[in-house]
């Protein structure tokens, strides 16, 4: 190999590397510009989505505080089925406690965990429950999620609304097949059974902790 050809090869390599470098700089620049430019809008819509979910379990007219800011961090709580820290939202109206909104999980779904969002009013009754994440069989057990429930007028999950430990005895927090008061669709008992149990446990936990949670100052 002659010196001249070696020179050509290395200059070729440098030229190619330089072009690749220019492309990398240009497109990384494009990416970071797009990221910076879209960040506020993306954060705003993520917040809006969160509020929409919160308002699904507790009507927006029932409270007047900034729900997203009045929160507490909970350590992992066994009674809620949570192995990770979670957030409690505290709804108030004119300073008076209205409801607690918190996460819970049913560990014994048909296909893994079913994650829930529960709103419990200050009088101990349930304002709403939503399934936020699940892997139940599509078309069979997924009616626990009202978006998948074929009965749009009265989705399955709404039968928890208004229930409290006072008006629903311990044994009634079960599907009818197990002697409780919770309806279920034939052929898919495991998912509603898991949800009913998790909701009962969450309500029992929150009933005991309610006063402390409402009074506790934000850290």
């Amino acid at each position, binding site marked *: 190999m002659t010196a001249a050809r070696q020179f050509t090869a290395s200059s070729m390599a440098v030229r190619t590397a330089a*072009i690749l470098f220019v*492309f*990398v700089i240009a*497109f990384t620049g494009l990416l970071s510009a797009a*990221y910076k430019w*879209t960040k506020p809008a*993306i954060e705003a819509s993520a917040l*809006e989505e969160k509020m929409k979910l919160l308002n699904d379990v507790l009507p927006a007219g029932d409270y007047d505080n900034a729900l997203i800011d009045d929160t507490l961090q909970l350590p992992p709580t066994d009674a809620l089925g949570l192995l990770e820290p979670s957030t409690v939202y505290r709804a108030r109206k004119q300073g008076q406690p209205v409801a607690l909104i918190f996460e819970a999980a049913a560990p014994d779904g048909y296909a893994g965990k079913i994650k829930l969002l529960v709103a419990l009013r200050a009088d101990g009754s349930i304002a709403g429950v939503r399934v936020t994440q699940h892997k139940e069989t599509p078309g069979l057990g997924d009616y626990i999620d009202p*978006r998948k429930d074929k009965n749009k007028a009265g989705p399955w999950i709404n039968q928890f609304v208004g229930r409290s430990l006072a008006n629903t005895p311990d044994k009634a927090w079960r599907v009818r097949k197990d002697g409780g008061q919770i309806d279920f669709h034939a052929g898919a008992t495991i998912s509603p059974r898991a949800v009913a149990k998790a909701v009962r446990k969450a309500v029992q936990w929150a009933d005991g902790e309610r006063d402390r949670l409402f009074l506790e100052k934000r850290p």
Partner: protein
Amino acid sequence: MTRDEFTTIARNGLWKQNSSLAQLLGLCPLLAVTTNAVNGIMLSLATIIVMAIANVAVASLRNFIPHEIRIPVFILIVAALVTVVDLLFNANLHELYIVLGIFIPLIVTNCIVLARVEAFAAKNPPLNSTVDGVFMGLGMLWTLGLLGAMRELLANGTLFGGIDMVFSSLHPIQLLPENYPGFLLGMLPPGAFILLGCMIAAKNWMDARAARRARQLPPTPVEALGCH
């Protein structure tokens, strides 16, 4: 671009070199996503947008890209543009993003984008490349829509399941009786493979019949590029 060029590109995209039936490209997202017609159509719509943009970008820059490093540069361009599209969708069309959002990252791994950039956009002017991207996507749209529709009909007896996630006023159509027991294979990937095989066979049969009528030899099948 002449009218003839346009017709050729359109015919190639929709039928002759159909990405799913002839080139067999992007099978991995195809099998995973087409559990119903709506998902298949949504993935195709996202792909149309990304392919048109990627093709235009590569076609415009094609004279600046050295042949030796074209693949890394193409990957860079495609990945950057897909991410930008993802961010813009999330920021400005959030409602649509909730529906299409999960499909857009899938497209980065879909080699059909890279294949069209390499096979077409790198050699053709921007306008032709845009048309190629759009029609390749449209070819994918009808194939995936049909495959998804067959799968959900077989598995659940419904059509357009999940449409209420896109347009909340619409509802899936129950085609088979409510008590249809369901056929799980249709929903699982093997069912997609079998049905896709049937669709490829049907296309080959129709091509062979057309060629016989024209008293020509059947066209040589397009060689699959061997990626998923």
